[in-house]
């Protein structure tokens, strides 16, 4: 068990590409930290730097009070679960788990105890003599986990471990991983591009974008108070509506809002109502309806000047607003509705989207 600290860590590839642009954060002892961001944001590179699989161009990585910049992966006392599991295909499940222990010169009796304990926790007992090729995806995933836990390392590193599983298994394994980590109390760093996985697993969430940290915090804080429009649109599904504040209806309804700012409203914060009350009201024409069962999403077009801000992961057509309503009711397509967002649920950002402005 250990604390992991990153101090102004940078990574520049020989070609000059700067993958990591100075990252600082600290994962407390026993904490579950999730690095989340879109593809190519550098989250996997950062994890591999912690593992020792990528060199560090600048800054320090500290595991348990020791700077490990020059330390071999084997000597960092970490275990990693890879996206494709990276099991040794020619070894049985037992030997896959025992390999790391044998390399460290542990006695066979102790190895047996540890592997059997891990197999019991992960329900792999019946498969110890099988080869990885004879296992299903979920079972391979569990062997990869087993290989990590038998070592009893200071830190677990997870590189998108669930992305090769089907949706149902992914949810089950997500819960398993969380339970296992709570039980073992091992400091963990987990990389994913799936914001739902990130929200549900993390004690501490690090949102990354193009080699930089956008925001660090606990998942709910980040959800409720995103620091930038990037975070606002990346965390939460469907994404937050981001609308420019110009000399139009929005500005009139928002006394004190600066010109050129960006207004953010989560789809679930809207209420379909004729009473504007103490909020901001939009008149929308319903363009599409998505019924998910428990809830329904309305894609509506704004009446007049209608241009949403395109924040990178937002992917909303300009002028479109998403409104979430309970599942039972739904307006017809082409119908006109009025969606109202209460004032205390609004998010306000500077014009470049880099700064949150408190109302």
């Amino acid at each position, binding site marked *: 068990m250990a604390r992991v600290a990153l101090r102004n860590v940078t990574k520049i590839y020989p070609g000059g590409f700067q993958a990591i642009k100075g990252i600082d954060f600290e994962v407390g002892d026993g904490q579950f930290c999730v690095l989340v961001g879109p593809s190519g944001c550098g989250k996997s590179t950062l994890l591999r730097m912690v*593992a*020792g*699989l990528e060199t560090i161009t600048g800054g320090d990585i500290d595991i348990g009070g020791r700077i490990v910049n020059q330390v*071999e*992966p*084997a000597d960092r006392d*970490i*275990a*990693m679960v*890879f*996206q*494709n599991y*990276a*099991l*040794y*295909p*020619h070894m049985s499940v037992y030997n896959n788990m025992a*390999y*790391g222990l044998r*390399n*460290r010169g542990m006695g066979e009796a102790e190895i047996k105890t540890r592997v059997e304990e891990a197999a019991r926790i992960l329900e792999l007992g019946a498969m110890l003599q099988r*080869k990885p*090729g004879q296992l299903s995806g979920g079972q391979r995933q569990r062997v990869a986990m087993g*290989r990590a836990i038998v*070592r009893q390392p200071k830190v677990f590193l997870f590189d998108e471990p669930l992305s090769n599983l089907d949706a149902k298994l992914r949810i089950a394994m997500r819960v398993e991983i969380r339970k296992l980590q709570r039980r073992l109390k091992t400091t963990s760093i987990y990389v994913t591009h799936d914001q739902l996985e990130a929200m549900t697993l993390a004690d501490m969430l690090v949102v990354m974008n193009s080699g930089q940290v956008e925001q660090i915090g606990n998942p709910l804080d980040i959800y409720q108070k995103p620091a930038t429009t990037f975070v606002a649109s990346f965390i939460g599904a469907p994404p937050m509506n981001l609308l420019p504040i110009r000399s139009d209806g929005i500005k009139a309804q928002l006394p004190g809002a600066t010109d050129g700012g960006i207004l953010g409203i989560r789809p679930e914060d809207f209420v379909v109502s004729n009473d504007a009350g103490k909020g901001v009201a939009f008149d929308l024409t319903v363009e599409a309806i998505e019924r998910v069962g428990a809830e329904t999403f309305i894609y509506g077009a704004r009446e007049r000047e209608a241009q949403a801000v395109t924040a990178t992961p937002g992917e909303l057509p300009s002028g479109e607003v998403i409104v979430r309503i309970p599942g039972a009711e739904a307006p017809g397509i082409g119908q006109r509705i009025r969606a109202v967002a209460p004032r205390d649920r609004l998010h306000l950002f500077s014009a470049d989207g880099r700064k949150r402005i408190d109302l």
Partner: protein
Amino acid sequence: MENRALFAGKLLPCLLILPQLAVSLIFFYWPAAQALWQSFLVQDAFGLSTEFVWFENYVNLLQTPEYYQAIAITLIFSALVAFFSLALGLLLAVMANRNIRGIQIYRTFLIVPYAVAPAVASVLFIFMFQPGLGMIARALQRNGIDWNPVLNGTHAMILVVIVAVWNQISYNFLFFLAGLQAIPKSVIEAAAIDGARPMRRFWTIVFPLLSPTTFFLIIVNITYVFFNTLGIIDTATGGGPNGATETLVYKVFQDGKVGTDLGGSGAQSVILMVIVVALTAFQFRYVEKKVHY
């Protein structure tokens, strides 16, 4: 999965396989049948009369001590060539499988020797190892080694082994490199995190995962040494001195072409054919099916 082409009639598929069949028949089956037929015949010294003698040629062959010497030489020769060409090919492939500047250039140059005809390679090495003339031979002599492949059977064997190995390394290198690149990088990384040092990583992870390639190459190399080293031996040593480098295939050539004992040579060819068929069958039956993980 059904992965076959379907044809409406029978004419087109027959026409399509005809060229391949014709090549096989004319260049493989016909000579093979002739060798088989010849192996049952004895001709007098002037070629005037031919007699059908059943297995007499085979019986004679198996009573000649030289034939057993040729078998022993072939086994030693093929073991040495297969071992060194595989080991060196693997070593070079491991070296060339790293991310270093200009790696493409190294890889290309490592493949080039395969394009050199065996006889040409042989001539180059004869020059280098020529006692009194060759630079390597003279260097050896300066260092007190009385190098002389023309008189010393062991030296002659070393010379043909070097030529054959040099010729075969590129081929093995290419397959080993492809094999190495097919090993997922994350498996190696997982082993590194699991505390395996590079040497241990190689022997416990990389080498076992390469085993399908290795077994394939062992068979191919043995087949190569058994049958395709005729040119090398003929140019380098001519089977000498005193039969020290006379392998089975060279003896076929020597007895048939030079000694004009067509019956005995035919019998030897048939035995060689049986060996290659056995090797190929072994490869298909066991190597391609059983060596996987």
